[in-house]
């Protein structure tokens, strides 16, 4: 199979599934093209002007049957391809819970990545093989797109939105990372690499990398420094919701709806607190847009999430 695609390796679980679908579709397409061009060719020769071929008319009823026949056949074929594509899509899109969580910030024209232990990288990502990886991605300026051809995966990174990309590398090696969404002057230079290592090599790499303090600790610092605790602490004078265990739980809002507190929700609560008001509270929280860089915001969110991990049912 890879003889046809000499340079592109299969680097993730998703990749081989995508390839199978691709080659099946390729087979069908070649067959259809051969059929159509073959018929055109045969008819062109056989029914060229003046040839002796039989040209008597088909009965109209037959014509109808032919039309209905190929319409149904096409419909059936397309539905089957659709069904297959859907099943692939939903099987590899599921989010694992035990994965390695990496925070990605895209900006013109570089990728900044941060490991759970606080190790930072630019335009490179080191990950262990055979372990699910979950990228949590934000953009500081325009839309970018995180693209690893060998993994057959791509996800836009959108300002104001937290997007995710989940993959499980299955091969040790270095793979190309590209930006796939046009983002300005140096778009074609916004490239990097994904280094997939054996688990031993990976832990050695973690040890030797300048591990700054971890995300949660940084986040806690910022949380205090910006005065969040001043309202959100249980002993504070202002009445604000307790943030312990918020993450992952449903939050009832003042407008009567209920939202799931995911990363996007936390992010919005901090940058645009007026967007969704928690039921039973006054909208007094100021917006922190512009006072936190995206990287800092990531650490605060990581801190809030850690509160959920330690004691989950405080809410």
């Amino acid at each position, binding site marked *: 199979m890879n003889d046809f695609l000499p340079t592109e390796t299969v680097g993730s679980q998703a990749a081989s599934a995508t390839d199978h679908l691709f080659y099946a579709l390729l087979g069908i397409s070649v067959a259809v*093209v051969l059929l159509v061009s073959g018929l055109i060719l045969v008819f062109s020769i056989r029914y*060229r002007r003046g040839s002796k071929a039989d040209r008597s008319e088909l009965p109209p009823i037959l014509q109808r049957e032919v039309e209905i026949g190929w319409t149904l056949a096409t419909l059936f074929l397309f539905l089957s391809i659709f069904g297959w594509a859907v099943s692939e899509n939903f099987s590899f899109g599921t989010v694992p819970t035990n994965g390695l969580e990496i925070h990605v910030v895209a900006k013109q024209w570089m990728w900044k990545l941060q490991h759970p232990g606080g190790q930072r990288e630019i335009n490179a990502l080191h990950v262990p093989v055979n372990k699910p990886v979950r990228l949590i991605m934000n953009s500081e300026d325009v839309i970018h797109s995180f693209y690893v051809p060998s993994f057959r995966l791509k996800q836009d990174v959108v300002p104001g939105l937290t997007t995710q990309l989940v993959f499980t590398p299955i091969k040790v090696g270095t793979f190309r990372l590209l930006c796939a969404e046009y983002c300005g002057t140096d778009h074609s230079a916004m490239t990097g690499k994904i280094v997939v290592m054996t688990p031993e090599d990976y832990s050695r790499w973690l040890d030797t990398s300048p591990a700054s303090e971890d995300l949660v600790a940084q986040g806690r610092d910022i949380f205090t420094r910006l005065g969040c605790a001043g309202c959100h602490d249980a002993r504070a004078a202002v009445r604000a919701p307790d943030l312990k265990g918020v993450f992952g739980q449903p939050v009832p809002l003042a407008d009567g709806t209920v939202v799931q507190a995911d990363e996007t929700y936390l992010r919005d609560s901090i940058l645009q607190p007026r967007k969704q008001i928690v039921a039973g509270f006054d909208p007094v929280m100021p917006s922190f847009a512009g006072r936190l860089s995206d990287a800092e915001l990531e650490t605060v969110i990581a801190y809030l999430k850690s509160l959920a991990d330690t004691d989950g049912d405080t809410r």
Partner: protein
Amino acid sequence: MSDATLDIEGLHDAGPDYLRAGHSVLSWLGAIDHKRIAILYAASTTFFFFVGGMAATMIRAELVAPQGHFFTNDTYNKLFTLHGIVMVWFFLVPVIPTTLGNFLLPLMLGARDLAFPRLNLFSWYLNIAGGALTIAAILFGGVATGWTFYEPFTSFYANGYVTLALMGVFVVGFSTIATALNFIVTIHTLRAPGLTWMRLPLFVWSLYATSLIMILATPVLAITLLLVAAERVFDVAVFDPTRGGDPILFQHLFWFYSHPAVYIMILPGMGVVTEIITCFARRRVFGYATMVMALLAIAVIGFFVWGHHMFVSGQSSYSNLIFSFLSFMVAVPSAIKVFNWTATLYRGQITFEASMLYALGFVGLFTMGGLTGLFLASVPIDVHVTDTYFVVAHFHYIMVGGMVSAFFGGLHFWWPKITGRLYSENWARTAAMLMFLGFNLTFFPQYIMGYLGMPRRYHTYPPEFQVYHVMSSLGAVVLAVAYLLPLFYLTASLFRGRIAGANPWDSTGLEWTTTSPPPEHNFHTTPRITRGPYGYHPPGEAARV
């Protein structure tokens, strides 16, 4: 023969043909005759085709080497933006409706002109005004947003005369709307006596379906571009995420126009190809009613598939599911059309004039473009190949392989009617075949490199893709020659071509019953229609020579 009762005697005193009806500059620039306006449009779209083509040539030249030779990143980005904007809005969208459509619609309906001749002229001036704004934006230094104007890039991160370019596209949109309105009213009200809906030629049906899409989709583009301009100029936050705006909203609005726009660009081509194939196969179109239904089905379903451009944008996977499903559904009527064209050849009396070669080339290339559309409708494959050269190849197969082939086919088919002259068939066949070969050489390698992971809009690229880029650029040279050839032999035909006569192809179309070139008022007496189109052989009997 034709279904029109034709007063041959009367034709001789029907006055001079439309080309001789006036020679001053004003008689052209102030023309309200649909045939003259078609010629005005032919001139302007040809100009824009060569502007867009120049940009394409420069892009292909630059991409021969992985690090480029000639341009900076910014210049490269401006080139592909220019190529996209000019080709989409100033060539592909208007070209068939405003040139062939304008010329032929009244002739095919047995009418004297379009319903609103002055609006027709006005729409040409709007087209020129929009073009002037866009060309001005280019001359002042260019725009590097991509033809898709994605947000928040366009509003806050792009330099140059972006607003000017936006206004250019905004204005030309109104030209499209005016033409569409004119066509719809004309088809409803100006059909000759006896020309019922199910007797309309399929080219007319394709213009009808196209006009419906134009009139419903183009206003959405207009309002979207206006919002972008407002954001850029007056700092109104609409798509700005830092102030609660939503950049994804822009994509929804943009593709809500731009996916139907794909059908604006291809349906007229389908109509043209149908006319050509049936004429040179000397067969009734196989499944006329199905062809009509397919055109309308494409026009309607085409409005509900825009989300397939956004599978990796962060859209929910359930939206992806629905848009994927609908994209598969819209492919069904397109597939049926391919089968019907093929079946029309069955038991025909086929000849291979240049326009027939173009039409058959269209069927092949459109099939390949359509099939790769199924790849892109499948979410897992799209995740990998969206924003790569695979997509670039896909839409060029439809737009260039399909639409441009159809346009050249139509141009050759109706050239004798438009000018009264025949061109050199051999040169024309050569150009048609060169175009087919050059096209495949240019764009087929792009499928391969796309699947290998070559992103689009990349000025510099990893060296392993060079071999495909070189092939593609070589193909572009062949293609450029094939596009330039007609300029010479068609021009030559104006002076030295054989006189065509009213109906050189022996077609049954109503437009061929009047003289070539047609008189100012098209028909001396209003034709009466008593039968359906494509009467190349009596139903139930064989095709005759």
